[in-house]
């Protein structure tokens, strides 16, 4: 009967205290500090409250993620926190939890179907947009910019790319070249070097995540040029780099908080409280001025 | 050096291959080892040189008990073994092959190529070999490769030299040169173990002869005190009177002919010949005369530039082996290990291969029928094996040859091309193969046999074609031709 309950967020679930809960967590990939931070925050909070959590790593494969979620369903966990590999292909996984009446909470990325109790996310399109605005603000509306995109086909690549490029067009930024560096630092180092060979008078580089921003930073340092670097994520290393002036800014997300808020939502649900359909984890621009404020 | 093997035993699993062997070898003498295929000759020598551990008995050298952990140890001790199957690296040069595992180094560990070249040239000179040292082994003929194997042993510190069928791939000329070398070695005090199925060689080179049968030693005698008939009787356990069985089946019309064949690779030119039903046509010639190449091209393995192949009056278009097989042509290749057999497969799977499609009923392969077919065949050819599911790699060389033979006999060919069909085959088995050839001929099969064994060519063929450097040098009738006539054509009076 909980299945119906979750649909309209009514808190008709049998009441359970956090220490009675067993929760499955499906993470898109733990090969990335961002998600590691999310994972660790959930585990730490669960431990504190005596909640049993099982974490599964989908290794960025949508069908592995479906398998993981179905394993949780067959184990009859009380709730599933899922960080989708992909917002479209997560739908059947969510539906299969729905069928079993297990509430699902989406983290970091939304789901384009099925019924989730709540989505705790920061908006990737918005993040890209924010980065474009930061570039324009620092280097002017007609600055020449390079873009380092993430793994081709990944949803964060698509969303951040769209957010950034649409906004850049609007502002009049000149995105002279866009190449993929697979969200990878070493690749970004080489790719940036190559792009700098081909393009002169570049003012700024936008990297779709911080790992690539840190690789680009090394390439810029080696080239001896003065070029602004913008990332997304808010890794602690980027904070340091921003303080040192080697990276200009990053759009910080709060993976740990996303994880905690998602787990809290599960607690609330089983505590009879109403859970918001979407919980927004704010994103904000980290620059030299506020680099000390928040870290993952 | 004196080697004494006492009570040597060896088994592979439950298969006891050597039983209570006692054998003494001495420096300065040539000791021939004879026996049927699978008698255990190669195994005994492998036990001696440390490739296989013995399961019983002991070896003493100059009075001291000795057992080698591996062939290298034996070699360092002065015992070299020229194996029956070639141990070479086709993609490496002659020089690299000669010195593998015994490279000469300069101070500092780097290779001393100059010294190695000098020594190699020296060894080649003794053997009368003339092959550039940077040729890749894979581009050499089997015979040339065999000479390289022999040269290898010259580079080691040589006290005892074991030769396991060294002449199986050699023609008359190389064989004679090898015998000269054996004489020199003997004079230098080297002891030689000579394994061969060629009777006449045994009497030419050896002082002692030991006969093995079923893993046991039957007798050791001074060669001078025995004769062919006695040796054969001891080997096979019965009397064999005529080594080349009489063939008195009639010869029919021409069924197979080729005309004006030219090789795409320039290996032969303008080859024309015909074969009749029931005829055995032999191809003779020196090493590298192009006999094998002609046959390969006919069978569709190598490319022809021009020429026609006709069977029963119909011109054939053979682009690849399967076309030839479909027309009823079989081809037993010269190199059984790389081209004739799938060594890791069972006898059954090997034999059935060219005929497998004929066991298909309604799309499905009838394994039972295939098994019955294979068992019949290997019984007919008296292949010595535990069952038709034994792996071919575990068979003795001669029995492997019979398996290849079985495979081609199995397709019921109209034309059967045999390239060195008795290479490495014992006297008894040879006779069985000849009888089989006669029987096939009797059924109207046209047989083309390439052979480097002259007595065999003279003994069983109806007609002889002699090749010289890629062309046909002449023809001789099978009966009545002499070795001299054949050799004269083969060398064209060189």
């Amino acid at each position, binding site marked *: 009967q909980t299945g119906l309950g979750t649909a309209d967020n009514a808190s008709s679930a049998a009441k359970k205290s956090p220490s009675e809960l067993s929760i499955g967590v499906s993470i898109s990939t733990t090969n990335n500090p961002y998600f590691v931070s999310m994972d660790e925050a959930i585990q730490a909070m669960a431990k504190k409250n005596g909640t049993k959590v099982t974490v599964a790593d989908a290794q960025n494969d949508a*069908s592995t993620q479906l*398998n993981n979620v179905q394993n949780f369903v067959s184990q009859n966990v009380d709730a599933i926190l899922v960080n989708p590999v992909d917002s479209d*292909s997560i739908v059947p996984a969510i539906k299969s939890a729905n069928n079993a009446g297990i509430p699902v909470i989406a983290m970091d990325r939304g789901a384009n179907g099925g019924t989730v109790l709540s989505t705790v996310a920061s908006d990737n399109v918005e993040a890209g947009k924010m980065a474009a605005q930061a570039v324009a603000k620092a280097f002017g509306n007609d600055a020449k910019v390079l873009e380092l995109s993430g793994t081709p086909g990944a949803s964060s690549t698509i969303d951040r790319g769209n957010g950034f490029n649409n906004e850049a067009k609007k502002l009049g930024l000149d995105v002279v070249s866009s190449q993929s560096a697979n969200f990878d630092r070493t690749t970004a180092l080489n790719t940036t070097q190559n792009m700098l060979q081909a393009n002169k008078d570049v003012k700024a580089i936008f990297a779709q995540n911080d790992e690539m921003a840190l690789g680009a930073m090394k390439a810029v340092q080696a080239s001896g040029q003065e070029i602004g670097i913008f990332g997304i994520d808010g890794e602690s290393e980027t904070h340091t780099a921003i303080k040192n002036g080697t990276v200009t800014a990053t759009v910080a997300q709060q993976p740990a908080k996303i994880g905690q808020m998602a787990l809290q939502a599960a607690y609330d649900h089983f505590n009879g409280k109403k859970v918001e359909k979407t919980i927004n984890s704010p994103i904000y621009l980290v620059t030299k001025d506020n680099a000390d404020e928040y870290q993952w | 050096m004196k080697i004494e093997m006492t009570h040597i035993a060896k088994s592979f699993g439950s298969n006891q291959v050597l039983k209570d062997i006692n054998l003494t070898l001495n420096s300065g003498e040539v000791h021939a080892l004879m026996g049927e295929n699978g008698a255990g000759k190669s195994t005994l020598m492998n036990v001696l040189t440390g490739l296989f551990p013995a399961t019983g008995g002991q070896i003493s050298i100059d009075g001291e008990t000795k057992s080698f952990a591996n062939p290298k140890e034996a070699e360092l001790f002065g015992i070299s073994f020229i194996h029956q199957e070639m141990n070479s690296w086709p993609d490496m040069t002659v020089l690299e092959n000669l010195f593998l595992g015994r490279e000469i180094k300069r101070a500092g560990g780097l290779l001393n190529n100059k010294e190695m070249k000098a020594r190699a040239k020296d060894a080649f000179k003794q053997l009368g070999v003339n092959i550039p040292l940077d040729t890749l082994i894979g581009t050499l003929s089997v015979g040339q490769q065999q000479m390289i194997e022999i040269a290898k042993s010259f580079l080691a510190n040589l006290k005892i030299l074991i030769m396991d069928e060294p002449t199986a791939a050699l023609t008359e000329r190389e064989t004679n040169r090898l015998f000269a070398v054996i004489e020199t070695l003997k004079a230098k005090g080297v002891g030689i173990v000579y394994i061969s199925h060629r009777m006449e060689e045994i009497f030419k080179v050896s002082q002692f002869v030991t006969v093995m049968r079923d893993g046991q030693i039957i007798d050791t005698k001074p060669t001078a005190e025995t004769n062919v008939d006695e040796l054969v009787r001891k080997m096979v356990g019965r009397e064999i009177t005529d080594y080349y069985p009489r063939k008195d089946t009639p010869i029919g019309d021409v069924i197979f002919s080729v005309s004006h064949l030219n090789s795409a690779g320039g290996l032969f030119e303008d080859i024309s010949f015909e074969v009749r039903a029931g005829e055995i046509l032999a191809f003779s010639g020196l090493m590298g005369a192009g006999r094998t190449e002609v046959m390969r091209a006919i069978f569709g393995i190598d490319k022809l530039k021009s020429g026609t192949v006709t069977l029963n009056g119909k011109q054939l278009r053979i682009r690849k082996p399967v076309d030839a097989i479909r027309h009823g042509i079989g081809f037993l290749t010269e190199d059984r290990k790389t081209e*004739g057999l799938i060594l890791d497969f069972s006898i059954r799977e090997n034999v059935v291969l060219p005929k497998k499609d004929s066991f298909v009923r309604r799309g499905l*392969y009838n394994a039972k029928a295939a098994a019955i077919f294979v068992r019949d065949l290997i019984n007919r050819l008296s292949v010595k094996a535990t069952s038709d*599911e034994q*792996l071919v790699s575990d068979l003795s060389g001669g029995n492997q040859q019979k398996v290849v033979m079985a*495979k081609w006999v199995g397709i019921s060919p109209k034309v059967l091309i045999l390239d060195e069909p008795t290479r490495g085959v014992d006297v008894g088995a040879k006779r069985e193969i000849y009888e089989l050839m006669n029987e096939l001929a009797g059924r109207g099969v046209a047989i083309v046999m390439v052979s480097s064994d002259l007595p065999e060519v003279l003994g069983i063929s109806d007609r002889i074609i002699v090749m010289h450097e890629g062309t046909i040098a002449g023809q001789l009738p099978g009966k009545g031709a002499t070795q001299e006539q054949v050799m004269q054509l083969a060398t064209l009076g060189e």
Partner: protein
Amino acid sequence: MKSLGNLSKRFSSLTTLAALVILMVIITFINPNFFTANNLLNLLLQVTANGFIAFGMTFVILTGGIDLSVGAILALSSALAAGMIGAGMPLPLAVFLCLVIGAFLGAVNGFFIAYGKMAPFIVTLATQMAYRGLTLVFTNGNPLTNKMDGFFLAFIGQGYLFGIPFPVIIMIIAFALLFVLLHKTSFGKSVYALGGNEKAAYIAGVQSNRVKVAIYTISGAMSALSGLVITSRLSSATPQAGSGYEMFAIAAVVLGGTSLMGGKGRLTGTMIGVLIIGVLNNGLNIIGVSAFWQQVVEGVVILVAVLIDVLRNRKSLRM
């Protein structure tokens, strides 16, 4: 008397089977939730994706080849099918064309390998890149979800028949057909012979080029089938689908006792290998081994399973 050859063949599957059973016992011991009908059905469903690919890969490896492009073929054929469905093509036709496309992409591999005489490793590595790239170009990097939930398509991956997930039933049928093809036809004999000794097989009348093209075609079609099931299960075709699947398929085949040198191995072994990998993935999830350690454990289990097999083989040689 039964021959040694056959006995040893059976034993070979037996050790791997033993490894599978032991693994299942250990996992059940740690968490009994593993051994429930529900989870076991789940498990079977989950292994289908790798199963299809591994069956095809078995043919390829038996000839001494390798196919690194399976994951990319899976993605490209699924994406093209999804595109056709999105464009309004009837589902059954699109599903059929998906398999045809997979077979064709495999045949392209086979063509280069057979007629170009190129090493399978490098050909399929190159086509892996090319096919994956084409998938991205075609999808523009986006998952395709338009009109992907018609009943026919959904049933392929999500349906049940007599309580058994439909993909499992397809897998059983595919296994049976391929088993017959490999072990009961003349084509199967050619596959083994090619892997055993290509030259000897060729001279004995095996049409090596055609057989090669055929096996890579099978591998491609099986990859497409795997893609269909995944696409149906996910109701969407993602451009990254199947990345890295080649390694799991190869691991399953090798765990199943098939030699990478070709000529030796069985399809039943592959099925067991697929199950071992499936049990590992499913079981480690259920036990709740952390993601980092999971990779370590999987690596070690694969190593141990192969090692046991090698040791057993060596012992049997000594007998």
